[in-house]
């Protein structure tokens, strides 16, 4: 092995540091044993370095690789999909450390490290993760630098300086490329995140589902309104419409069960000024999007369904930004088709007989459907019903009979469920709507932050002449939930985020902490809107805003200009370093004198002594003779003879020389 191929100890230390820094953000996602492989590999490599163990042989290596593959297969059940692929990459990354012999191997390992860093972004592009990744990239670059400093046999912390400087210098150009590089669609389909849990409201709702979801303090989405934010009691974010009740669970209608004629969106009259807003949704691994009633998409790639929902044809695997406009007062489906009416009235046979009987009785006692709704809500309001995050489990068959007449404790989905079957029993088309209600207004940037615990279920009822009307039975039981949110509604119970006592949302009363959280949230929103959500559409608009009409010429000019702007200063700072040769002040003075003579056409020859030059000047310009002799004499004395012992202080003749040169300003030779 040539000396060049050896790995200095400093580099080895940095490689191991960056290896562990890289694995850290992945740690929660990969099987625990992969972390074990890392520790094992690091120990092995260090023992090799200390001369105790040896590098693995070919068969041991093959065995380790085989073990890695089968381990991943056992942990994930397959090798296909993003998670197993990344886990496999990480395992290979760890094992590569054991066979790190030459510099070549280190290159493979470190470039793989950069790639591992990129895979982290496929899971999250959170601001903190990105900031951390900047650190890991710096560490990997440091290891690369250390690899090229032969003979450093001790760990050197300052190696990181050059790496950090280089990355800083690269940053502005990265931004230029980031904003200018055309965003093109996927080149081919890629493995999806098959192993990530679906989050948020699901398309299947049983009593107890939403109360479970309400234990989470994660952010579901953030909304920015173009104008004022409507009051929170109006913020009903529709996500799913459940029209089908089967086996004690509410479901949405499968697309292919809807007759073709019913699939298209019914025309809606929209005359008033709409509410316009932008939503950034956290990845949910689901297809539905959220909007206020009645929402129309204003972004490409967002669709509308026949029950007036927003829908994304692809699952949300990333933070997704979309814009929508809403007309809260628009009338939906003035006339109901026969198929729709039958669908929205359907009830499973021989279930909840008591509840259905109660509904028919109540209906008989009032004049119209409107009054019937009020009667049902009044029952919820006056009878001792409790709104609770901890509802008792219910029997599957006659769940609502049990709830309405025995337990009387339920969360929003219980009330919505009971309400809708009562409506249907009385012949009023009705359905359950699931989504979120309310949200926290961030005073910092005026966005609405909707958390998972804002999940909610309510009802929609179709009334003659009014179309679909929203009715929220929960409001009848617990008006606080709608006015103030879940935390207030269950304050007495103390069950708000009971499972996550460290959630920052518990500390909303600590002003500075809350302000910090909100500021960070505002930053996250900016980040997501500008960086994460930057797509071809936004790119086009941004470039047009900045450069006006786009042309290839402008494009090239900007690109080249930006590069020159960064590279030239970097080059200057690198190449114009101070010389190692110190110039004495007297040399500077003498050189200045020579420059003045040169301007008059009398140049000192290289190698010509000051005395000889003075003689030549004397000959050419006798007028300047005395001055020139004075300067040359002083210089000679100072340069070549020891002056009086004046330690520390400069020789007084030095100042004499300085003055002599300064006053020497000849215009012409003669």
């Amino acid at each position: 092995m040539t000396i060049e191929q050896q790995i200095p100890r400093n580099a080895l230390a940095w490689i191991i540091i960056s290896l562990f820094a890289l694995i850290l953000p992945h740690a929660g996602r990969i099987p625990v044993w992969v972390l074990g492989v890392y520790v094992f590999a690091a120990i092995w490599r260090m023992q090799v370095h200390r001369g105790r163990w040896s590098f693995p042989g070919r068969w041991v290596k093959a065995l380790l690789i085989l073990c890695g593959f089968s381990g991943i297969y056992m942990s994930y059940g397959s090798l296909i999909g993003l998670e197993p692929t990344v886990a496999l990459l990480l395992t290979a990354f760890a094992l590569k450390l054991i066979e790190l012999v030459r510099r070549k191997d280190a290159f493979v390992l470190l470039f793989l490290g950069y790639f591992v860093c990129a895979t982290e972004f496929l899971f999250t592009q959170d601001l903190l993760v990105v900031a951390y990744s900047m650190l890991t990239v710096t560490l990997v670059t440091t290891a690369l630098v250390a690899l090229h400093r032969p003979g450093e046999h001790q760990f050197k912390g300052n190696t990181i300086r050059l790496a950090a400087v280089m990355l800083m210098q690269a940053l502005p150009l990265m931004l230029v490329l980031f904003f200018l590089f055309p965003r093109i669609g996927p080149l081919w389909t890629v493995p999806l995140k098959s192993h990530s849990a679906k989050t948020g409201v699901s398309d299947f709702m049983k009593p107890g589902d939403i109360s479970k979801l309400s234990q989470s303090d994660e952010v579901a989405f953030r909304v920015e309104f173009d104008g004022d934010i409507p009051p929170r009691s109006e913020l009903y974010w529709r996500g799913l419409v459940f029209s089908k009740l089967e086996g004690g669970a509410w479901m949405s209608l499968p697309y292919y069960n809807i007759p073709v004629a019913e699939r298209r969106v019914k025309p809606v009259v929209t005359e008033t000024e709409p509410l316009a807003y932008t939503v950034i949704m956290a990845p949910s691994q689901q297809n539905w999007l959220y909007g206020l009633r009645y929402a129309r998409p204003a972004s490409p790639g967002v669709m509308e369904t026949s029950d007036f929902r927003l829908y994304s044809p692809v699952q949300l695997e990333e933070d997704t930004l979309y814009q929508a406009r809403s007309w809260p007062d628009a009338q939906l489906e003035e006339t109901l088709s026969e198929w729709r009416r039958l669908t929205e009235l359907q009830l499973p046979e021989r279930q909840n007989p008591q509840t259905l009987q109660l509904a028919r009785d109540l209906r008989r006692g009032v004049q119209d459907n409107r009054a019937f709704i009020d009667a049902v809500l009044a029952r919820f309001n006056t009878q001792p019903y409790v709104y609770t995050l901890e509802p008792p489990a219910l029997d599957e068959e006659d769940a609502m009979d049990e709830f309405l007449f025995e337990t009387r404790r339920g969360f929003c989905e219980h009330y919505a469920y009971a309400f809708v079957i009562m409506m249907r029993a009385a012949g009023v088309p009705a359905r359950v709507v699931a989504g979120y209600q309310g949200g926290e207004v961030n005073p910092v940037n005026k966005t609405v932050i909707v958390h998972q615990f804002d999940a909610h279920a309510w009802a929609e009822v179709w009334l003659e002449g009014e179309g679909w009307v929203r009715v929220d039975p929960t409001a009848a039981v617990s008006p606080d939930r709608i006015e103030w949110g879940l935390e207030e509604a269950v304050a007495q119970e103390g069950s708000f985020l009971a499972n996550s006592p460290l959630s920052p949302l518990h500390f909303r009363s600590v002003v500075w902490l809350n302000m910090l959280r909100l500021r960070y949230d505002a930053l996250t929103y900016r980040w997501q809107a500008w960086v994460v959500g930057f797509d071809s559409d936004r790119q086009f608009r941004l470039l047009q805003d900045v450069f006006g009409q786009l042309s290839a010429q402008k494009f090239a000019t900007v690109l080249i200009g930006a590069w020159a702007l960064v590279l030239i200063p970097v080059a200057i700072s690198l190449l114009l370093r101070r010389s190692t040769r110190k110039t004495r002040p007297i040399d500077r003075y003498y050189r200045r004198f020579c420059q003045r003579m040169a301007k008059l056409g009398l140049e000192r020859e290289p190698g010509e002594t000051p005395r000889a030059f003075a003689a030549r000047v004397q000959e050419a310009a006798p007028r300047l003779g005395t001055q020139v002799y004075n300067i040359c004499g002083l210089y000679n004395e100072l340069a070549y003879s020891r002056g009086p012992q004046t330690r520390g202080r400069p020789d007084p003749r030095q100042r004499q020389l300085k003055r002599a040169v300064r006053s020497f300003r000849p215009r012409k030779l003669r």
Partner: protein
Amino acid sequence: MVPAESGEGEIRRRLRSRFRQWVNRRIPPARAVTLDQKRIFIFPSKVGFFFALALLLMLVTAINYQNNMSYALTFLLATLFIIATLHTYANLSGLTIRALRAQPAFPGQQSEFSVQIERTRRRDHFGLRVQWPQSTEGLVNLVEDDRVQVHLHTAVGARGWYTPGRLLLESTYPLGLLRCWTWVDLDLYALVYPQPQSSAELPGLATDKPDGTSIPVMGSDDFYGFRDYRAGDSLRQAHWKGLAKGQGLQSKQYQAYADRSVWLDWEMFGGVGVEQRLSHLCYWALEFNSADQEYGLRIPGAVIEPGTGERHLERVLKELAVYGQERKEP
């Protein structure tokens, strides 16, 4: 087939000589060369191409997953590559390479070539690799000191002046993605002595004095005594044991059969080719030297008065080495 191949070889050879001419014009031979943009070449290294491939893979990932942070990382690393160009260049720029000396050697032996690398600017230089086409390599840093000496060994060729070719100075610091290099002709020549070749005896031995009897020089001489060590005495004859005992350095004296000066004459080896003649003369010079016998050299174009010692031997061997060469001094 064959003519086509030789044609190709011809083209390659012509290209190579054209390239050599171009380099010669660009970096003319000099004992000291300071590196500037005229003399430094830079190009992505193999590792750099591998890195570019990795970046391409990352770009494809970013495109396929529509992942903006992956885009950002890819672009950051791509610009890092470009920034590295300047850093790699700066690592060579401003260095001065100075030829120091080349040790004389016998044909086929290793000669040591010494060069000095100096920095002219206040910056650290790392991983500077120096090598002559066939020599050992040196890898140095310039961090604490402003100059560093490198000693490289290479096998020399035939008698005369051996030039190791152009010195390669290269570096891939700091990231290994780019290779920055220069070829400098340091005008450094190693003297190659003739290959010593024994001859049974010295024919027609010439001495100063016409009455000189033939002197048997072959074989081991008898030990005669000590004298104080004088500069120029062969170290082989130094009395080290005495020095260790604290007696001061002394030289062992050997008694030759005849304590007379010997002339190594060109004409001694009549009828032999030039190179062989030089080889014999070389052999005898070495023999006399190890016997501490005075000898002189008389060849066409050079006469060296008889003498002894290493200095004397060097002068003699040099005259033999440069015989018939255009160049007399390095």
